[in-house]
């Protein structure tokens, strides 16, 4: 299976009924692939199971249409309904022959896609070239003088094609052309180029960036870098695995220690808790026994005191009662006594007290008794207080004694617990020390965070995960090493099949050992195609479906000649007579270019000033034919002269039209178009470009410069846009575009047919001309690096001066 077969997906060509093979698209995953049954190798042997494809490629568009229509109606096509295909040759040869013979009508128009470019410095023309090269279903020609960026372009095309999953065969006549492109690709990750060596080449003699792309150097890098790295990786993986395996033995012990530590911790907690509760424990346990001697003594003493207190309290109550009685008796006589003792003579109470004879004795008795009671009470109260104090003292002594005993017991017990706790802690310390010793051996990722079974379980789980990964990693490293070691012998074949760019000189390709195994490629890029011969080209194109040919114009490229006084006749368009003679002198690249490239400079029309009058040359006049030119005024416009070439035994032809002085260029063009049905376009552009907007279809010859413009209406919806440029040959107006209005019913197809009919220009979009010089290497013989207009001016001036010199 080729790389193309893995990565190609089917895409719709732009138009129906043409045999445009599908262009691989997408940037990556495209599991659906299409095998083009033309992939039968360079021999072109027919696959018997693909008669339809073979017939379709050989058939003419009309035959294809008929067959497709029949298939649409019938659902299935029958072989006997297929007429013999138009071409009996193999498709590729048929295409090449068609192109060389100028049969370009069957090429479907090419609509280049919008791309994202790797090289951001490409100019618009170069980008267009890349887009056309990538999108062409058959061939694309790119022409440009030295220094116009062809190598840069080739590199970008290769990158774009590689990004689409294509396999590219890049050929050039010389190694210099090859390497100038490969240098730009040597570090790009999207490509894997193989530089094939010529028989006499030595990789050591190549620049390092190129040498590393050769098969021997890739193999050497592989042997000297990849294989040792794989060995080292395997060794490292095994070492890591062994280290990991050594850790395995520690886990059971860690689990035991963790359990022990937990038990110790629990025990320590329990002991600490007991220690903290010793006082209460002692309090509950020591003096809860009622039969203790000390307890009994305490109770007896208290009981005795309580009895005494009770007796005293009773006595006190008696005295209190007596006092209360005395107090009541006193209260009864108190007013009298107070009055009598106060000598309140003025009160009646005194006189009553005086009259009461026993009052004095009564009062004295009461006071005496009260005093006695008070004394007795005081003595009792003192006694009570003493007994109470005694009781308190007894209780204090008891409590103190109790506390002392408790403290002693607590201390004893505490000491015992402390010993136990210390023992447990010592045991913990010992265990922790062992733990840390083992954990120091373990790797950081698996060390348990704490001494607990949970942490050990987590650590072990982490270890097992890592172990599993490292087992797999070691296995992978082992397999990788085995792969790279065993792959040394098969790497050349693998490289030949996998490399998406094979670069070689024309002569190197058959001789390089790897090239014998090369399958058919998706894209062939030929650099310096102008230096190749047709047999070399034919041999190369057999290897690929699509071709991109990059080359330079011929030194005497007739497209550089300009119409003007004394200038040689420009090369006619392919469909005009006389082109075969010139074509035969051109290389095949230039012949292809001539047939595929719509060069408006080859149009025979020329506008010039002749004694301040506009002259339009419709056809070239060969040297010596001037004598056959007859002048005739237009019937209804006597101021317009028709110059008719009336060669004997030939049909007369209008070759020139001379307009009166002061006639506008627009009016003159309209006259030519209307009366003579000629579209006399003179442009400075070197190629045509179709542009489409929502409103218009535009055929652009040259970019509209920021100068004066003039729009000339030709027919309904069609107008010609002129731009004023520095005078060249006396003519300052040049056609920059023809515009077709969609509102008038113009479509791209219709406009193309209109142009093909009137100008013979048919541009299938297979050519791009690079004109912007970025480097003068070598300096051109003619000022070809100047803009076409300036070039024409210089050429015209050179021609004029030459003629003047001749006259002189």
């Amino acid at each position, binding site marked *: *299976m080729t790389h193309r*077969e893995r990565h190609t997906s*089917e895409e719709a060509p732009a138009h129906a*009924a043409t045999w*445009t093979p599908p262009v691989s698209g997408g940037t990556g995953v495209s599991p659906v692939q299409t095998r083009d049954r033309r992939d039968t190798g360079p021999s072109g042997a027919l696959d018997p199971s693909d008669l339809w494809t073979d017939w379709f490629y050989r058939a003419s568009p009309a035959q294809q249409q008929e067959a*497709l229509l029949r298939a649409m109606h019938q659902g299935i096509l029958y072989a006997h309904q297929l007429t013999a295909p138009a071409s009996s040759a193999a498709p590729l040869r048929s295409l090449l022959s068609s192109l060389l013979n100028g049969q370009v009508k069957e090429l479907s128009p090419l609509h280049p896609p919008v791309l994202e470019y790797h090289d951001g410095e490409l100019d618009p023309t170069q980008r267009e070239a890349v887009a056309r090269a990538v999108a062409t279903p058959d061939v694309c020609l790119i022409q440009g003088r030295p220094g116009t960026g062809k190598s840069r372009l080739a590199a970008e095309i290769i990158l774009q094609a590689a990004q689409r999953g294509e396999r590219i065969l890049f050929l050039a006549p010389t190694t210099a052309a090859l390497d100038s492109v490969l240098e730009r690709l040597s570090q790009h990750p999207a490509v894997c180029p193989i530089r094939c060596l010529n028989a006499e080449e030595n990789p050591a003699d190549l620049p390092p960036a190129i040498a590393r792309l050769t098969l021997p150097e890739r193999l050497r890098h592989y042997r000297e870098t990849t294989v040792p790295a794989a060995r080292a990786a395997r060794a490292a993986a095994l070492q890591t695995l062994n280290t990991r395996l050594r850790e395995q033995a520690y886990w059971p012990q860690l689990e035991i220690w963790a359990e022990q530590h937990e038990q110790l911790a629990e025990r320590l907690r329990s002991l600490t808790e007991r220690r903290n509760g010793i006082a209460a424990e002692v309090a509950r346990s020591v003096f809860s026994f009622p039969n203790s001697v000390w307890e009994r003594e305490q109770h007896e003493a208290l009981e005795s005191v309580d009895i005494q207190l009770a007796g005293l309290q009773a006595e006190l109550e008696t005295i209190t009662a007596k006092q209360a009685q005395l107090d009541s008796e006193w209260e009864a006589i108190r007013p009298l006594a107070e009055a009598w003792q106060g000598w309140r003579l003025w009160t009646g109470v005194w006189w009553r007290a005086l009259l009461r004879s026993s009052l004095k004795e009564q009062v004295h008795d009461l006071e005496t008794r009260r005093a006695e009671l008070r004394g007795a009470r005081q003595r009792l109260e003192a006694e009570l207080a003493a007994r109470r104090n005694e009781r308190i003292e007894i209780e204090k002594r008891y409590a103190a004694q109790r506390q002392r005993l408790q403290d002693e017991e607590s201390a004893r017990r505490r000491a015992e617990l402390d010993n136990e706790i210390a023992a447990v802690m010592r045991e913990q310390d010992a265990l922790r020390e062992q733990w840390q010793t083992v954990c120091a051996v373990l790797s950081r990722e698996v060390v348990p965070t704490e001494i607990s079974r949970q942490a050990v379980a987590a650590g072990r789980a982490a270890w097992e995960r890592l172990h599993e990964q490292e087992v797999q990693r070691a296995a992978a490293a082992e397999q990788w090493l085995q792969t790279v070691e065993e792959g040394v012998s098969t790497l050349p074949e*693998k490289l030949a099949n996998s490399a998406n760019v094979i670069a070689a000189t024309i002569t190197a390709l058959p001789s390089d050992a790897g090239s014998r195994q090369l399958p058919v490629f998706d894209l062939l890029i030929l650099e310096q195609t102008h230096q190749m011969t047709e047999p070399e080209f034919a041999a190369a194109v057999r290897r690929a479906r699509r071709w991109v040919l990059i080359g330079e114009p011929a030194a005497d490229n007739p497209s550089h000649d300009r119409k003007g006084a004394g200038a040689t006749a420009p090369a006619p368009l392919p469909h005009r007579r006389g082109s075969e003679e010139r074509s035969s002198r051109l290389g095949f690249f230039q012949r292809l270019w001539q047939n595929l490239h719509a060069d408006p400079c080859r149009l025979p029309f020329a506008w010039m000033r002749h004694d301040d009058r506009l002259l339009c040359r419709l056809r070239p006049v060969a040297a010596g034919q001037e004598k056959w030119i007859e002048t005739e005024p237009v019937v209804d416009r006597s101021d317009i002269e028709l110059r008719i070439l009336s060669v004997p035994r030939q049909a007369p032809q209008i070759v020139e039209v001379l307009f009166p002085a002061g006639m506008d260029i627009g009016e003159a063009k309209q006259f030519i178009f209307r009366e003579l049905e000629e579209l006399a376009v003179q442009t400075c552009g070197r190629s045509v470009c179709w542009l489409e907007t929502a409103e218009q279809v535009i055929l652009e010859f040259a970019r509209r410069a920021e100068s004066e413009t003039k729009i000339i209406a030709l027919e309904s919806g069609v107008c010609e846009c002129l731009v004023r440029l520095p005078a060249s040959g006396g003519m300052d107006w040049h056609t920059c575009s023809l515009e077709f209005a969609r509102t008038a019913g113009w479509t791209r197809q219709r406009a193309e047919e209109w142009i093909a009919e009137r100008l013979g220009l048919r541009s299938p979009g297979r050519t791009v001309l690079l004109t912007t010089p970025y480097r003068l290497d070598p300096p051109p013989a003619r000022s070809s690096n100047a803009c076409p207009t300036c070039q024409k001016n210089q050429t015209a001036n050179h021609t004029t001066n030459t003629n003047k010199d001749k006259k002189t």
Partner: protein
Amino acid sequence: MSAAFVLSWPGSRVLLGWWRELAHRRPQQLRFSHLLIHRVEALVRVRKFHPLDRWQRALLHLAGTRVPCSGELLGSLTDLQMDPQLLGQFVRELTGSGLLYQNGAGLWQITPAGCHALQTGAMSTIIEERRMFTFVDNSALGRPPHFLPLSGEHPRSGRRPRSGEHLPPEQRQSQRAGALCSEDCPFEIASLEACLRQTLEWKKRFRFPTDVEALLLPQFHAGAASVGSIDWGANWRRVLLDVVEQRPFVFIQTASRLLGFAVHPEDWTLGSEPLLTLADGWEEALPDLAAEPSPPMWRQAWQSWAQPRSLPSTEVEACQLERVDHRLLVHAPPRLIDRLRAARSDAVKQEAWLLAGEGRTRTAAQIELHPL
């Protein structure tokens, strides 16, 4: 206008030669058929399995080994110390086949398809390619076409049949002269579609390709009236092409199989190897081969054989015919046998063969004379 082709049938000596040529295969019956073959070319979707090469296996293994939680994925290609361009190309092969993908973190991971490929050692790719499927036209039998696993490069000795020539003579004459054959021997695409839907057992029995997953037919927009209104960009490759040919075949029935050999109609030579080999179930494809000609057909065949030899019709009609294996036992009157002996007929030497039957198939039998 060229004359319509007439089906030709092999003579006795030809049949004898075939029997002897195929004797080593121990045939039990020999039949001759003019089969109308449809060689239908169609674009199909095929799932192909390709073994992983060592590089692909190793890279997939690496991508599947480094699990995401460790963060060490194949994304760090530099540790492989391979040429970045070379390794990039190897990786592109795998991503293009859907076996690897690059996750959001830019690291390469193996896909489920990649895991499966690693387990099976092969990766599958879906390819669209044109394949040829051979069907035998059974319309004359009132049946749809049936797939035939014709093998090998057979000589292009078949011809496109003219209108109706595959039909029995009585039907052929009723056809319009010059009509397209497609009208008389059309091929229904449904027959091919039905084969795709068959069980695996059926496909294996008739050796229908099991890697074909789908038939890709052109997609036409409803109401498309002209070629220009159809997106032929993708459709032109999906056009089905039917190469209809009438081909003569010799079939022999052995103990366990049915073998079919191509015949060169110019010289009646057989292909060296059988084009068709079917075991159980061949009657489904070629039902008329299983049908034994009726006694009247044998009688007619016997009379047709006897007529050119100027045998008296009464004696010919007096013969009793008995069919045994590949032989036709002719219990003939002694005088008839004497005539044949005098004429040094091949029948006396048991080298005479005849064909019986109707339609496209004839059953061959060796004449064995016995006195009545």
